[in-house]
């Protein structure tokens, strides 16, 4: 008897440890990105005066020298705080205890120069406005997420314009209106299967149909959105059908018994009842479409784009694509930027998730 209870306890502990190990390991591999991410929102600035310009200027970012030459000493006498180069930036953040990627080594003489500057109070950390106002640049200290953010929003808009009518419409058709013929289960199977096709294959579709055959502008939100839309439509269809299946049959029958036409039953009774679940699970599909990268890789949307897109045919890249690009760069600044980009992506995703969560609570309380 005692052995059986020991077993009982042991089994329970085993299951609990599986759950905890899984959650903790998952947290442990994702959490460092959060911890490192905030360093991307800070940037180092150097105080440049006419007296110390000789020592300081080599550490000022090339980007700022090219973009605003009027602020840099040969042109001006005024002291100013200027953006530091990647090297100085990573060194100073390390000095402040912020760096966790220490792959980049600075030569000893550079190190002593920078150490001197820091001791004299010639360096400071400031909020990195460039990260949220600029598009991608070749220099890590100049690069920002704004372009990718615009690209993501435009792509998502195009994708949803395509996916929402297709997904929701065919779900209503298949669930409510489709006649029972020999071909109905076949369509059903084909479309449900579409929802589980690996997303890379939609990249192949985009590559061949939208790029080669239709010749749409190449790294544009239009093309990316159409590709992502093709992927999201079957997913939306599946979730909408699940929501529609949750509406009791009695509602439909009683509405019909009172003389409502089939279409009126759907429009006035079934859809309003299924709407809460349709919206909340639809938001989850949207957040999945937002994080999708693989099809974009194939249609060439993972490319360097230095300006924010203004329309759906401008060259653009998306947030996850930007993260992918930055992660491949060896500079320390880009590693930190990668984590910053992931934080940005998480922010958007938690907006959608939070909205879904809030809507679910709201609908539960006010049915």
């Amino acid at each position, binding site marked *: 008897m005692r052995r059986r209870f020991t077993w009982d306890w042991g089994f*329970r502990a085993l299951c609990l440890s*599986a*759950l905890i190990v899984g959650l903790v*390991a998952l947290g442990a591999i994702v959490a460092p990105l959060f911890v490192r991410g905030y360093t991307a929102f800070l940037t180092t600035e150097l105080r440049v005066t006419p007296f110390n310009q000789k020592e300081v200027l080599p550490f000022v970012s090339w980007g700022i020298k090219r973009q605003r030459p009027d602020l840099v000493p040969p042109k001006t006498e005024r002291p100013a705080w200027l953006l530091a180069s990647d090297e100085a930036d990573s060194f100073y953040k390390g000095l402040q205890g912020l760096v966790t990627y220490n792959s980049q080594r600075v030569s000893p003489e550079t190190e002593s120069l920078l150490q001197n500057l820091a001791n004299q109070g010639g360096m400071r950390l400031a909020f990195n406005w460039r990260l949220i106002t600029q598009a991608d640049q070749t220099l890590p200290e100049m690069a920002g997420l704004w372009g990718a953010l615009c690209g993501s929003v435009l792509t998502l808009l195009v994708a949803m314009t395509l996916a929402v*009518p297709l997904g929701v419409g065919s779900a209503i058709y*298949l669930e409510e209106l489709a006649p029972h013929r020999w071909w109905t289960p076949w369509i059903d199977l084909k479309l449900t299967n579409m929802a589980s096709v690996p997303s890379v294959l939609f990249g192949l*579709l985009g590559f061949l149909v939208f790029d080669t055959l239709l010749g749409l502008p190449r790294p544009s939100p239009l093309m990316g959105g159409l590709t992502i839309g093709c992927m999201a439509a079957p997913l939306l269809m599946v979730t909408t059908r699940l929501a529609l299946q949750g509406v009791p049959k009695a509602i439909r029958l009683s509405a019909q018994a009172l003389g409502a036409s089939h279409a009126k039953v759907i429009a006035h009774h079934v859809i309003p009842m299924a709407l809460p679940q349709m919206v909340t699970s639809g938001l989850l599909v949207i957040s999945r479409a937002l994080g999708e990268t693989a099809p974009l890789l194939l249609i060439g949307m993972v490319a360097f784009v230095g300006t924010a897109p203004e329309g759906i045919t401008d060259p653009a890249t998306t947030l*996850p694509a930007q993260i992918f690009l930055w992660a491949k760069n060896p500079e320390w600044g880009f590693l930190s930027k990668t984590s910053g980009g992931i934080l940005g992506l998480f922010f958007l995703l938690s907006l959608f998730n939070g909205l879904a969560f809030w809507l679910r609570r709201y609908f539960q309380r006010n049915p």
Partner: protein
Amino acid sequence: MLFRPCQTRVLRAFLFTLCLILLGISLTLLGILVWETVGFFTHVNPFEFFLGLVWNPTVTDSGECLFFGSVPLICGTLLITFVTLCVAAPLGIGGAIYVAEYLSPRNRRRVKGILEFLSGIPTIVYGVTAALTIAPLLNGWGQWLGLDISFESAVVSGLVMGLMNFPFVVSLSDEILRAIPAYVRSSGLALGATQSEVIRKLVLPASIPGLTAVITLAVARTIGETMIVVMATGLSAQLTLNPFAPATTLTAQLTSLITGDQSPGSPKTQAAFALGLLLFAVTFVLNLMATRVVRKYKVRYA
């Protein structure tokens, strides 16, 4: 009123059109995969593609296609899937048993909420983690233990994909376990079995088909997963069963074929579509199996 949008006939015709468009998209996808694959097989012998042991796609100047053997890719994919399952299956099913059988309904809802959020993490995040954190970490551990764990090994992406699949497996297995009716449990307990005996001898055997279906779905997801393998595995296709050696997968090679060589109609691009068709077929069969099992199983207890 001449035009009534709520008229059933109008609505039906409109929604039918939408449904047809969606069907058209899915048939186009299948169509281009088949079409390009047929084109590919005019250049490369299908036997060579399916049975060839060397993958190093080259097109010589005379138009000869060499080294289009997909066996190393399939092998690499299976190896990574195996590592993934070694991580995801025990952790996921064990965790699901705890969530479904031991947690109070309130805590269960909380844990499910966390799992839902975790399963919404985009794969690019896992890809970055795998490439930047896990690969150097495992490499360091390997050196410490005297093992040569490559940065691009199957263990790295398998481990990360296993953890990625963990919330997915837990949520689905939990649903499967909860679908076992309560009388199974209460009758077991009434006969004097301990709770773990009820789970091990009654609940688990009854839910084995469902759990198999969950694992099948996880396998389908792993095989089709792209971003993690693109970032964390290499492109050198070796025929090996060593999980510590550099590995490559179907999806990684497919991506490199399309992003590297972008002239449509060349055998290399067509090879990507052939790999795509292979992926499509495998995931289709796996998903079909899983849904069949789940459906059959639901009927039995309904």
